[in-house]
C-alpha cells in the first residue's frame, strides 16, 4: 500500500505537475489504482506523460515506460509478447491521450487489436492536444474553440465532428470496448474490473475534462463530466465483440446548454447568430446519440441517477477487502 495512505496504492502519487483540477490526472489515478501496481504501464507522449515524469522525478509507483507519441500500442504489444515468452502473467496497460489514440496512435492501436494482444488500452479523452497548448484533435467536438480551430469571420471553431472512435473499435470485433468518465466512479470501477477480467485486447475511453483547455473553473471538472453524460453528448456504453451489451440509461435528459455554459471553449457560440445555429446543432447531435443508443429507455442495471449514489460510511476503494469494510460497486445503494 502507499506509505502516505494505507487504504490505496497511489500508483500515480502526489507531486506530479498537472494543472490544478486536472481531469486526466484524476482519471489516471482512478484507473491505475484499480489495476494496481503489479502491472506494466506503457504511456504515449502527452500531458499525463509530461506531468508525471517531470524534472527527473516520477509520480509513478509501478513499472512504467514511455517511448514516442505514435507507438504506445506497438510498444505494449512487444511488452506483452515478451511476458508471454517468459511465461509471466503481469497485466499490460496502455495510457494515451485522445491525440495519441484517435490520431497519431490509431494505426498501432488497430494493429495491436487485430493481432489480439492481451492488453488494456486506456484513452484519457480531454478532447484536444493540451500539452502543446490546446490544439484541435480528431476527438475535439464540433464547434469547439482551440488554437488551431479558432472561431473567426468564417468559422465557429472546429468544423468537423468528434471522431466516433468507439465505432472504429467495434469494427475490430474486439472482446471489450467501453466509455466511462470520472464523474461516475462506481461505473468506471465496474468497467475497469470487468476489463481486467477479460483476456485479449480491451479499450476504455474515459472522458477527462481539462480546466485549461475547456476553460471551466478548476472545481467543476467532475460536474462538467457528469453533465456531458446527462445531456446525452457522451453516452456511457459497453461493446463486446462489436455488439452493444451495456448502456447507462439517462434518468432524464438535460439540455446541452447546462453543459456548454460553464466552459470557455464554447463561449463564442453564445454571442451572435451563427453561434446560435451551432448550439442547435450540438443539441441535435445529443438527441441523435440518445436515439442511437436508446439512452432514455434502455432497461439496464442502473441509470445516471442511481449510478451516482454515495454509500454512507463508504469504505469503498481499491484495497483488498481485509482493510476495507465494503467495496465500491455493490455498496452503491
Amino acid at each position, binding site marked *: 500500500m502507499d506509505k502516505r495512505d494505507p487504504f490505496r496504492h497511489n500508483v500515480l502519487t502526489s507531486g506530479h505537475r498537472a494543472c490544478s483540477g486536472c481531469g486526466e490526472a484524476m482519471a489516471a489515478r482512478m484507473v491505475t489504482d484499480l489495476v494496481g501496481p503489479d502491472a506494466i504501464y506503457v504511456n504515449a507522449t502527452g500531458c499525463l506523460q509530461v*506531468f508525471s515524469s517531470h524534472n527527473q522525478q516520477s509520480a509513478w509507483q509501478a513499472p512504467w515506460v514511455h517511448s514516442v507519441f505514435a507507438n504506445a500500442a506497438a510498444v505494449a504489444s512487444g511488452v506483452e509478447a515478451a511476458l508471454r515468452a517468459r511465461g509471466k502473467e503481469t497485466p499490460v496497460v496502455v495510457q494515451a491521450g485522445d491525440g495519441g489514440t484517435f490520431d497519431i496512435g490509431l494505426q498501432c492501436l488497430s494493429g495491436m487489436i487485430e493481432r489480439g494482444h492481451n492488453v488494456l488500452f486506456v484513452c484519457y479523452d480531454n478532447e484536444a492536444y493540451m500539452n502543446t497548448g490546446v490544439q484541435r484533435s480528431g476527438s475535439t467536438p464540433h464547434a469547439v474553440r482551440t488554437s488551431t480551430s479558432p472561431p473567426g469571420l468564417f468559422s465557429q471553431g472546429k468544423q468537423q465532428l468528434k471522431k466516433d472512435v468507439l465505432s472504429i473499435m467495434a469494427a475490430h470485433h474486439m472482446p471489450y470496448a467501453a466509455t466511462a468518465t470520472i464523474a461516475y466512479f462506481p461505473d468506471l470501477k465496474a468497467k475497469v474490473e470487468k476489463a481486467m477480467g477479460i483476456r485479449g485486447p480491451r479499450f476504455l475511453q474515459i472522458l477527462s475534462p481539462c480546466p485549461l483547455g475547456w476553460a471551466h473553473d478548476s472545481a467543476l471538472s467532475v460536474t462538467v463530466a457528469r453533465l456531458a453524460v446527462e445531456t446525452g453528448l457522451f453516452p456511457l456504453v459497453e461493446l463486446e465483440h462489436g455488439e452493444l451489451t451495456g448502456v447507462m440509461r439517462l434518468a432524464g435528459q438535460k439540455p446541452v446548454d447546462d453543459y456548454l455554459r460553464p466552459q470557455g471553449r464554447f463561449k463564442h457560440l453564445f454571442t451572435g447568430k451563427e453561434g446560435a445555429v451551432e448550439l442547435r446543432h450540438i443539441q441535435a447531435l445529443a438527441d441523435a446519440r440518445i436515439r442511437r443508443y436508446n439512452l432514455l429507455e434502455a432497461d439496464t442495471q442502473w441509470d445516471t441517477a442511481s449510478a451516482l449514489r454515495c454509500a454512507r460510511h463508504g469504505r469503498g476503494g481499491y484495497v483488498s477487502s481485509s482493510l476495507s469494510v465494503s467495496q465500491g460497486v455493490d455498496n452503491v445503494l
Partner: protein
Amino acid sequence: MRISTFREIRFHGRGGQGTVSAAALLALAAFEDHFESQAFPKFGSERRGAPVEAYVRISNTTIRAHNQVYTPDVVVIQDAGLLRSEPLLRGLRQGGLIVVNSEQEVDDVGNKNDHFRQVYLPASSIGERHLGRPLPNTVLLGALAAGTGWVSLIALEQAVTKHLSSKGEKMVTANIAALREGYGFVSSEKEPVS
C-alpha cells in the same frame, strides 16, 4: 564593454497570471521609446498554477545574444506567495530594484543588508478595480516604469494599446488606467533611480 546602457528585468508569477505578456509589453514599450529590446519566457511547459518566469532585455545597441538572464537589475514578483517556494532574488545585482505585488512588506524579501530597493503595492486589488479580475501585471509595469524611469508612461500606454487591441476598446482603457495607477503609486513615493 561596448554596451553602455543594458538593463535586464526578470518577472515571476504563476501559470495563467499573464507573466509572459507582461514581459512582452515591457519590451514593446522600450521598443516604442526607440530602444532595442528582447523578451522571452523561461522555456518549458507552463502549467496553470505552477511558478513561471519571463525576462526582458533593454539596450541602446542591437541585442544579438539569446542567453538567459542570470543577473537582473530588477525583479518583479506578481505573486508574493511564490517567495515561500522559489529563489526569486537569485542573481539580483547590488542596488537592484524589487517590485512586489503585496499589501504590506514581506519579511523574507532580500534581507536588509543586501540593500535592494523595494517597492510594495497591492497590484491585484488595484487591477481588480479596473479590470474586474485581480490581474496585477499592467499595474506592476506602471510601478516598474516609475521605479526605474527606463521606459516612459506614454510608451507603455502605446504598447498596451497595440498589444491588447484585439481584446476590444474597454480592455485597453481599463489596462491603461491600471498602468497609470501603478505608475502614480510609485512615482509619488520615490524619485526614479538614475
